[in-house]
């Protein structure tokens, strides 16, 4: 086998979209798959941890490579980790709503885990948009949640530095979506447009100028693959999310209803850990910090890290700090 062939074989075996940690699909419903990760350390707490990732990107960012894996860090701390993979919505999912995601898919995953462990409550870690879904679920079903962790999660969608919110405020979302899905390519363009000089040029120029070694180039390409691996968004859920959260800020204003039931964050009395990236350009810190004033929980902790949005999952610093902080917080509750 040639060196190139060997590398290509290794690249083919590179975890990539599957992540790097050993896991098993334990439940499936439509395109949604629930994974359980193989424990690699002595159990720290009794309740399992369910990671609820965003709909707008793929969840393997949480387990990108061995030395950059939030999931591996959590496993190393002795947590029993589950992850929801929402899959890639297609034309048949265009009418899938937020209620479907929260009441059917997320609730189904929770039910499956509770049944398997003979428990009646678990820990939830909601990431970015997944944090918003987790907040909604936890407010609607507080009896199922032992502890709630939100990570780079927007709550007040009208904070002054929120560029996405400003851009979407006057867009006719119903017309944009029509009866279809929203292309992942469109979302990629949107995210790149937030910082175009850095995201479409500088990072590549830096790569060219930096003479990377093989490992760092492979790291770069893995992140690159993830960034542009953007699923199309189920049209109805996208329309609801942009309208209800970005435009009308219903969650922060206590006006949100899912399936006719009010999502009142004051009903959230479980312990809450809110993890915030101080340099997050997608979810400004103020958007996350607003959570404290809205929840009913008296056990609320906010931890701010000097990291950006993606750095919260994959930076070397995050690997040392974030899983340990989560484990320490969970272990004390």
């Amino acid at each position: 086998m040639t060196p190139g062939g060997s590398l290509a074989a290794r690249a083919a075996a590179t975890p990539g979209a599957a992540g790097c940690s050993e896991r098993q699909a334990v439940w499936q419903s439509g395109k949604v798959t629930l994974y359980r990760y193989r424990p690699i350390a002595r159990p720290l707490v009794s309740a399992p941890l369910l990671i609820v990732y965003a709909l707008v990107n793929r969840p393997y960012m949480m387990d990108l490579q061995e030395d950059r894996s939030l999931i591996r860090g959590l496993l190393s701390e002795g947590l029993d980790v589950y992850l929801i993979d929402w899959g890639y919505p297609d034309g048949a999912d265009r009418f899938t709503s937020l209620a479907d995601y929260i009441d059917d898919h997320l609730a189904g995953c929770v039910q499956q885990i509770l049944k398997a462990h003979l428990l009646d409550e678990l820990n939830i870690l909601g990431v970015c948009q997944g944090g918003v879904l987790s907040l909604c679920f936890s407010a609607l079903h507080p009896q199922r949640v032992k502890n709630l962790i939100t990570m780079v999660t927007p709550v007040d969608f009208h904070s002054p530095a929120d560029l996405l919110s400003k851009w979407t405020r006057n867009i006719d979302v119903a017309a944009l979506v029509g009866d279809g899905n929203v292309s992942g390519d469109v979302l990629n363009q949107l995210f790149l447009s937030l910082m175009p000089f850095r995201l479409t040029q500088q990072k590549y120029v830096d790569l060219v100028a930096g003479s990377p070694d093989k490992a760092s180039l492979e790291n770069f390409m893995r992140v690159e693959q993830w960034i542009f691996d953007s699923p199309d968004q189920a049209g109805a859920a996208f329309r609801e999310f942009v309208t209800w959260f970005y435009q009308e800020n219903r969650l922060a204003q206590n006006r949100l209803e899912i399936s006719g039931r009010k999502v009142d964050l004051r009903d959230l009395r479980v312990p809450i850990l809110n993890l915030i990236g101080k340099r997050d350009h997608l979810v400004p810190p103020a958007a996350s910090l607003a959570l404290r004033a809205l929840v009913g929980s008296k056990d609320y902790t906010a931890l701010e890290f000097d990291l950006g949005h993606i750095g919260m999952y994959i930076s070397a610093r995050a690997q040392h700090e974030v899983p340990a902080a989560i484990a320490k917080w969970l272990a004390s509750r």
Partner: protein
Amino acid sequence: MRPDPWQQWQAFSALFTPGAPASPPGSGHHDASSFAPFADLTERFNAAARAYFDGAANAPAPAAADAARSFSDSLRELFADIQLPWNLSAGSRALGASPIDPMNSPALGATREHQLRAQRMADAWRRVEEAQRRLQRMGADALREAAATFASGLATSPPPAPSAAALHKLYGTWVDCAEDAYSRAVHGEPFCAALAEYVNASSAWRKELQASVEQSAKLLDLPTRSEINTLTQRLAGVENELRALRQKHRPEPAAGTVKRARRKAKP
């Protein structure tokens, strides 16, 4: 064939390494072009920077200022065609075109409905182009502001000795200036309004286009998206009813089989 980034990178590096051995056939050399735009950007930036160094080094103040201005103008040109969604060319223009300008034709007769649709489509496209021009103007203004900031920064200190590190630092400084100016522009109300108009007009145009395509599909007795949507919604309704029935008849867990997760006492 699965592309190998490392092979591509090596092939790309070889292009710039004097005396490097030629790559074997099929090594991925031909794929090195994926890096080429950024190498080109680097080269053009370096050329502009070298001209600045040559013009500013040991020159009297007015000449140094001229060199700085010329450098920042080059950067404006260099970055003017940055890829943003609203800068993409209107490739679908032909779809909205008509041999007769539908905007100036009265909608009469049996095809009146289709004429009106074509007029709405043309009007939406006019709005798209107008919003696109506004966005591009604001982008150009931001670049002008960035160039001015960059030039004034250069004027405050003598140019460093030309080196790869100095060039990279200058590039980083320019990107900082460009992002700052861009950020100020895109947070502003005029930009947000123009962007919303661009998206809304595009949506209106697409809606009319979809209606035209459906009309053609009906003529050929092909299923339309609207018909498939109707079927999808009916199926979803049946699924929801089935789920509700299952939920209603799901047996409750036997008493004593579920335990609460242990909760530690608060510290």
